[in-house]
């Protein structure tokens, strides 16, 4: 009997120690509020400027769009001396409930992240006309005065990245490891990339591979294995676009011999030089959608009652070259800059549509 309990106690103790070890690293990242400490989550008072953010099913430290939007909300809170708080959605059926927490908490601006939350946001905005809503990645079909959709032309960012890849490839084979094609922004990135690459280099072959919809954005090991496969098939520039799955591809490419010299990777969404430092060696650039900036700007506009309503197009572009700066010839840089300018001005069309 004693022995049994001893073992159980040992196992339990080990689990607790393990938990505590993890916790020592996690403490700061998991603190949820920027302004006031723990306690009640309601907006502290009528004078305070309160920003609430509801994530899509995911976490604010997902190294992807939830995190970027949350950083934007935080920056806006700092710039305005306001207060920001988030709720992480676990079940997509809770979108309305989670938005409702901020509504009844007296928040001034509510940011909802992800195109899946579009409908719940529209419903909440119509019901609460006194609150400003910002829907990240949510295209607005009808204009609601207190709701602004922050949308991005992902195909343009993908196009610019593909253009760069098309100019940089030596093997004339470029690849991409992507999340599922059933998510529109991912498909826009992927197809834009292909279009851009072919525009720069019509003789190149472009390989796109999409993960199956199950675990599409949370399978870095698959992303890495696919990236390796493409490398072995002589692809020398690979675009990783699909949350953690794409990140797995980037990390794998950075391990390849010749990474940063002849082999390159391209990140997505944010400047992944910072979010995936493991990939810095091979990271040519990232096809950015400036989510943090867009969220911050819109929140601050909403504070002054100047949020435009309808759709607000955020900026896209390519992140700085960082460590691979020297590897990119000047004429390539110039050409890519020209294409980005053309895309922004509307003189270059990506011709990508979602079928």
């Amino acid at each position, binding site marked *: 009997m004693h022995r049994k309990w001893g073992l159980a106690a040992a*196992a339990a103790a080990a*689990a607790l120690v*393990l938990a505590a070890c993890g916790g020592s690293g*996690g403490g700061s990242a998991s603190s949820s509020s920027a302004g006031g400490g723990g306690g009640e989550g309601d907006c502290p008072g009528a004078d305070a400027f309160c920003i609430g953010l509801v994530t899509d099913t995911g976490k604010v430290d997902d190294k992807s769009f939830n995190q970027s939007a949350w950083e934007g909300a935080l920056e806006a809170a700092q710039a305005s001396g306001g207060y920001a708080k988030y709720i992480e959605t676990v079940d997509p059926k809770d979108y309305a409930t989670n938005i409702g927490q901020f509504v009844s908490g007296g928040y001034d601006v509510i940011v909802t992240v992800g195109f899946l939350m579009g409908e719940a946001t529209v419903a909440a905005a119509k019901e609460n006309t006194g609150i400003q809503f910002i829907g990240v990645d949510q295209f607005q079909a009808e204009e609601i005065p207190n709701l602004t959709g922050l949308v991005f032309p992902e195909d343009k960012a993908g196009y610019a990245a593909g253009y760069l890849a098309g100019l940089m490839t030596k093997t004339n084979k470029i690849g991409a490891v992507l999340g599922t094609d059933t998510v529109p922004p991912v498909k826009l990135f992927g197809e834009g990339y292909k279009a851009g690459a072919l525009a720069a280099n019509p003789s190149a072959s472009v390989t796109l591979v*999409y993960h199956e919809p199950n*675990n599409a954005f949370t*399978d870095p090991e698959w992303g890495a294995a696919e990236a390796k496969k493409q490398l072995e098939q002589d692809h020398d520039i690979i675009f990783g676009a699909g949350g953690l799955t794409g990140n797995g591809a980037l990390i*794998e490419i950075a391990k390849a011999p010749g990474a940063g010299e002849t082999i390159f990777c391209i990140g997505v969404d944010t400047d992944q030089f910072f979010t995936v430092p493991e990939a810095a060696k091979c990271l040519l650039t990232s096809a950015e959608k400036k989510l943090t900036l867009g969220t911050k700007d819109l929140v601050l506009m909403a504070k002054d009652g100047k949020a435009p309503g309808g759709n607000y197009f955020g900026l896209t572009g390519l992140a700085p070259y960082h460590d691979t700066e020297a590897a990119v010839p000047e004429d390539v840089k110039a050409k890519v800059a020209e294409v980005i300018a053309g895309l922004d001005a509307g003189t270059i069309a990506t011709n990508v549509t979602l079928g």
Partner: protein
Amino acid sequence: MSAKWAYALAILISVTIVIFYVLDPTKTTSVVSFSLRYAVPLILAAMVGIMCERSGVINIGIEGQMLMSAFAGFFGAALTGSLLLGTMIGVGTGMIMGAMLATGAVTWKMDQIIAGTIINILAAGLTSFFYAQGFTLPGITPTLRIPVLADIPLIGPVFFDNGLFTYAAIVSALLLWVLLFKTVWGLRTRSVGEKPSASDTSGIGVQKMRFWNVTIAGGLAGLAGAYLALEAAGTFERGLTAGRGFTALAIMIFGAWNPIGALAAAIFFGLTQGVASQLQTDAVVDIPPQFVNMLPYILTIVLLAIVSGRIKPPAAVGRPYEKD
């Protein structure tokens, strides 16, 4: 799977691979390499299942054991600055998780599937709760190219130019086969899993045998977790194991609770995955990618339906041992 069918299938697949190799060596080699790489965690996890079930204990908690070990291994490596220490922490965590299952399923005679399910939920909850950003591995895991052998076409680059974990997985399968079928330990383990009362009468400590086998198997799950975090993905993320622990159970059954069979089954499963994504990228015919992605699973079911009937689990698996 019955031996005759297994050999026939293996020969058929090998011939197909060789034909494709002749047509396009680069592509074929890369697809086969992908299969092995995809198979590594499945092989290790299937060995966990085989070791436990051959001893009479169902381990449905492999997924959680791997996840917890991947978590501990990654943060261990990041905090100590040593990949080796990280791997050891991962393996150690796996053994602790193994001991937890053993305590529940063997010592306490709990329902074994409940005990494993608890581990899965607990691991998913704890690793997500304590996840933290901003840690990176101190380096990349070394690869080992075995001279001469690595120069063999197709087989060389696939099997003899890999990371250490890959060799560990293959060796563990071969070793477990030898241990199970050629040693006293193996004989005892199998008897404990088939007919515990008889082993008890002949003086084998059923409980002790089961407890330690399940605990040591946990170490293999730890190795699989460490592989995922330290070598394959190069990072830890929530839900990193992505259901591989459950797929491994299927592979264990597919391989008829035989380490070599499971090794082959895992590589076969990896191959179907590799072919599926290759079909998608080559876009030979325009089929929706979802159908291509279903292919490995449908193929597995069809294969099992054809060769069915001869796969029998260890007789006493799932039942806590009670002295009469």
